[in-house]
């Protein structure tokens, strides 16, 4: 729910258990309480996409069992092990921090990662405003971290079942060659295009590839996106790491983002998500500001976490 600073403060003082998304400035002024926060100025609220530096997006949880923990790059491997057996955890990771890199490159190997329900997002800033720092906030101590992730571990009642899901409007383009990587990470030079070693930047240029479309990795029936960040001096930089052993293809083009989003979400309109977040690249490339996406209100983020880091994807949790 989109709320004013005073409304959120009252909720915190009243003892509510909250996830809060908003600007670095506002988050740092909130009172101590049972909350975690992350910085963004982009939101998908009831009524449409919004950019705001004077309101906060709040998700309230009805659960009694919870814990809040912070994790530096050296501790983040414990995040899933610390999660409740029956529950879910929301992990907020500051963009471009060491813990962001560590999580992105290693999360799938963390202890218990797929035996717990782990979601979250990469915090960011207004892309048009300089001087802002992506942060994650532990509201119990009101400590704002630029170099640590903060997790809200939630325990749900034993008769409830949690599910982590994602909605990806992109699919592999069946006409794309298979692109594989022997070097892993956020930046690569070479790849294999249909098995032939190729300089990726050259391949993209020579084939007129639209880098607003992501690479889509095939994860046993699920498409996992890797978004292009930039191409500099022959090096292709991504918003999430590519991995060896995954068969990627370019995404199929989408003529109308808003239409495609609503069309995909139509099938989920009765979903009661306990938490959701959506990607800033969907927001920007889809020009979603002011446009109504009927379900799944939440922060617009700089990377989404559905167990591991994904891009250009809507991630949500259900508790049934």
């Amino acid at each position: 729910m989109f709320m004013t600073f005073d409304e959120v403060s009252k909720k915190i003082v009243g003892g509510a258990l909250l996830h809060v998304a908003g600007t670095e400035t506002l988050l740092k002024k909130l009172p101590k309480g049972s909350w975690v926060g992350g910085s963004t100025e982009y939101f998908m609220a009831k009524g449409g996409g919004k950019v705001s530096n004077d309101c906060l997006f709040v998700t309230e949880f009805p659960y009694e069992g919870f814990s809040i923990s912070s994790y530096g790059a050296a501790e983040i491997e414990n995040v899933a092990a610390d999660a409740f057996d029956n529950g879910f955890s929301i992990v907020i990771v500051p963009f471009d921090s060491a813990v962001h890199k560590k999580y992105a490159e290693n999360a799938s190997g963390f202890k218990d990662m797929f035996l717990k329900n782990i979601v979250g997002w990469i915090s960011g800033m207004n892309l048009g405003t300089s001087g802002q720092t992506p942060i994650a906030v532990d509201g119990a101590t009101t400590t704002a971290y630029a170099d640590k992730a903060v997790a809200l571990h939630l325990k749900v009642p034993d008769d409830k079942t949690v599910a982590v899901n994602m909605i990806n409007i992109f699919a592999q383009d069946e006409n794309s060659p298979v692109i594989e990587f022997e070097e892993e990470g956020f930046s690569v030079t070479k790849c294999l295009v249909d098995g032939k070693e190729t300089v990726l930047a050259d391949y993209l240029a020579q084939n007129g590839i639209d880098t607003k479309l992501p690479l889509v990795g095939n994860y046993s029936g699920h498409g996992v996106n890797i978004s292009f960040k930039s191409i500099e001096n022959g090096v292709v930089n991504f918003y999430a790491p590519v991995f060896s052993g995954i068969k990627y293809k370019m995404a199929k083009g989408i003529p109308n983002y808003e239409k495609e989003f609503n069309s995909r979400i139509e099938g989920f309109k009765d979903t009661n998500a306990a938490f959701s977040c959506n990607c800033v690249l969907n927001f920007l490339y889809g020009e979603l500001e002011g446009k109504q996406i009927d379900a799944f209100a939440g922060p617009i983020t700089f990377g989404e976490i559905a167990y591991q880091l994904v891009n250009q994807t809507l991630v949500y949790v259900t508790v049934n």
Partner: protein
Amino acid sequence: MNITLEQAEKILKGDLPFSLLGFSMMIARLKNTYAKDPSQTTLQTCADEMNSFLRKFKGAMANDYSAIARL
């Protein structure tokens, strides 16, 4: 429900799709691990991890397990 070593090997070497996101992502990691070290020890470790997932999420895994059982 239990995944045998033979079924685990077919999963790791094949392209069977799964409906559960967490299982799919876990299988992607295990495939990579097994490709780098296709030993019996690794296969057993991978099968154990699959079965841990199956035990924890047996309700949600019913459809996926039906496909695995046919391997």
